């Protein structure tokens, strides 16, 4: 019973935090965009425009909800629902912190550390493609369908390279559990130092998976009006946009925990602080890393132009996948050499 309550509380917290961060990512996106373009950005709703996400939310809810006459109504509603559901599901396996000791019992700050955590994330993320595909198909609109086709082909192509870049990491760490991978990176033994190529491949694929610039072809305004969500309005559109920001947050969290040590930070043992305090500090540092990567996502968005579609496919199949394969080979050789197989 106690187990269920603890997990329930954690689930609710992670859910609310994801939503809150996604909401404020929209604000951060606009502010950072403005700053990088020497503008001020939204500053009218509350001090520094801090209430802007609330105003946007109210706007989204108040807008008229339109379902096109020739749209498949059931699928039209299913699309954004799948998108939102899968976006919220991925946060389950991410270790948000070390363990908290309350009344002598140790509680991990992670909802569940299943031993196939990475596979779980890949599974859930690939269901997310259906959200876009179904939404674009059900809209019964050329632009939506084009956007959906682009999105699904892009995500399938980059998922391959992403999976292969993770395989190299798994070969080094010997486990698929994210909690275990983070534990191995204690102190400053971050995976980014032993897997730099894998990290670069992973982050590029993460950009593609989140449909962020320079891979935002599915919603490329100049060619496709709005892409797969052209026909969507009101909170259904809000769900699509919101899911994109949650995905970005979760991707940042995965990058931070797989390659940047998660809640670990240098000199973690030399502080001499009580265990619970260290855990809280670790969680804060983890969120610091996550926020940096969210910033990085936005920073890149205002730096690089969008790929052309053939360039996107060229990079995906002829650059990323061979590089990922090479990385696997290199890692395999190093692992075997370390194990003394060549002597």
């Amino acid at each position, binding site marked *: 019973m106690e187990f269920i309550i603890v997990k329930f509380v954690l689930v609710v917290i992670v859910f609310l935090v994801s939503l809150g961060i996604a909401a404020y990512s929209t604000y951060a996106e606009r502010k*950072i965009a403005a*700053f*990088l*373009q*020497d*503008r*001020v950005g939204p*500053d009218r709703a509350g001090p520094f425009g801090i209430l802007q996400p609330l105003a946007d939310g109210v706007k989204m809810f108040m807008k008229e909800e339109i379902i096109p006459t020739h749209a498949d109504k059931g699928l039209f509603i299913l699309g954004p629902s799948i998108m939102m559901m899968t976006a919220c599901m991925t946060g389950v396996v991410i270790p948000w912190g070390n363990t908290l000791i309350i009344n002598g019992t140790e509680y991990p700050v992670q909802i569940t550390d299943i031993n196939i955590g990475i596979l779980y994330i890949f599974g859930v993320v690939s269901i997310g493609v259906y959200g876009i595909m179904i939404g674009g198909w059900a809209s019964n609109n050329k632009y939506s369908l084009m956007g959906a086709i682009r999105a699904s082909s892009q995500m399938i192509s980059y998922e391959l390279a992403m999976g292969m870049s993770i395989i190299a990491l798994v070969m080094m760490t010997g486990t698929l559990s994210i909690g275990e991978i983070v534990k191995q990176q204690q102190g400053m033994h971050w995976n980014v130092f032993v897997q730099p190529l894998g990290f*670069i491949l992973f982050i590029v694929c993460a950009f593609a998976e989140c449909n962020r610039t320079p891979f935002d072809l599915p919603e490329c305004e100049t060619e496709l009006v709005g892409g797969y969500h052209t026909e969507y309005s009101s909170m259904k559109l809000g769900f699509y946009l919101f899911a994109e920001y949650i995905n970005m947050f979760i991707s940042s969290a995965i990058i931070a925990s797989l390659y940047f040590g998660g809640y670990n930070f240098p000199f973690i043992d030399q502080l001499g602080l009580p265990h619970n305090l260290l855990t809280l500090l670790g969680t804060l540092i983890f969120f610091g890393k996550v926020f940096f990567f969210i910033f990085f996502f936005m*920073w*890149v968005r*205002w*730096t*690089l132009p969008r790929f052309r579609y053939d360039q996107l496919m060229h990079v995906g199949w002829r650059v990323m996948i061979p590089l990922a394969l090479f990385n696997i080979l290199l890692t395999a050789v190093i692992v075997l050499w370390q194990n003394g197989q060549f002597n």
Partner: protein
Amino acid sequence: MQLTNRSEVVVNKEMTFKERLYFPAIISGLIITVKHLFKKRATVKYPEEIRPMAPVYRGLHVLKRDEQGRENCTACGLCAVACPAEAITMTAAERKKGEEHLYREEKYAAIYEINMLRCIFCGLCEEACPKEAIFLTDRMLPSDMNRANFIFGKDKLVEGVSIDSRIDISKRTNAHRKD
């Protein structure tokens, strides 16, 4: 045939390995954008902060009164004739007995309207006016949600009678002012 000596030969040369990696270029791009994070913002936050205006700026109109608080305008209609945007309309009326403290001459404008959406703020009305009644000031036209509110009547155009509610037009250097 060569027309100028400025033409350049286009070379589609192969990229070097470093260029094909793209990462040096991406990183230098990222550095350029992040530098802008610390640059001065170009935005002027308008209602709180007003950009310095040129001394000849032509803003909102004012219908002046004389020293005794009588309206200068005699509804001659020269401003309306001069107006290239046809923004000014007026209806003249005759001054009655006992209204001498309100209007300076026997004729006055009962209705005087400027459609601010048509007005181009050229200042020709000011130039045309023989009675020094209409002037453009350094004030800005306030925004509104309703088109009807942009038709400014005498209630918005005529300055107040008391000395402090008079509108200062001396801040604008105006070559055409007769005084």
